[in-house]
């Protein structure tokens, strides 16, 4: 397996979407190629790093102005149709 082939398969390897024969080839290559080892390791670290970003909130200093605009827009919203039907 060449470095280019390894890079092409990198995400399949990380995500365990690869058949066993190919996994063995990747591991064989990684054992001998420092560059590909670094790319694999840093890509994995990237994925770990962003994983918790989903729960990230906006900075406090932006929050109150945003909230104020949002609340005003909310108060001015058109009435929901189910309320007028009552």
């Amino acid at each position, binding site marked *: 397996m060449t470095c*280019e082939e390894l*890079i*092409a398969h*990198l*995400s*399949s390897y990380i*995500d365990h*979407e690869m058949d066993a024969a190919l996994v063995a080839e990747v591991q064989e290559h990684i054992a001998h190629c420092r*560059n590909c080892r*670094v*790319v694999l*390791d*840093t*890509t994995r*670290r*990237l*994925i*770990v*790093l*962003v*994983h*918790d*970003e*989903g*729960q*990230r*909130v*906006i900075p406090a200093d932006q*929050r109150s102005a*945003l*909230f104020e*605009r*949002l*609340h005003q*827009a*909310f*108060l001015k*919203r058109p009435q*929901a149709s*189910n309320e007028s039907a009552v």
Partner: protein
Amino acid sequence: MPGPTIELTIYENEEALLAGLRRRDPDSCACLIKRFAPLVYAQAIRLLGDADEAEGILQQTFIKACDKLDTYEGRSGLGSWLYRIATNEALMHLRQRSPHVNLADVAETIQEDEMPHRLTSWTFDPAAAALNSELRMVLEQALATLPEALRVVFVLRDIQGLSTEETAAALGLGESAVKVRLHRARLRLRELLSAYMQEH
């Protein structure tokens, strides 16, 4: 004249807030907004890459949520429910906004310039680094430079944690297209973050 001040901590927990929303307490929607707007906004800006558009999605999300409370079954938690509404609204907005997509952005092979160039290892511990606000900013900025076709897949798969199948369904793409775009997004972000890691 400023409006009356709203007491935003009148509900002890999420269940009390939900009960208030169901009773249609006058201030309950304001409390919902206060509690969850930052989370929803962060998701919208990641998907759209534009602060003004993200704010529009934020408004639509809460207006929709407060109008549709009767259909909320309470199984997933208010935060996840709002997150899902925001994601759907943002994706709908993206579909309407982007008639001209750059073909290179949606190519189903790695582009020449996406091959790794920076080959220094990262010494930091990702678990500890997740708390570093400077790194977070670098990451959000790097994310914003990705072409939309790659960014959206990365946000849904690696940040939001959807499966390949769920992401494909949400975007109306084939699973192989999702995989290739995710891979291209990862390579680009790895490169961008490596530049930062090298200097720190």
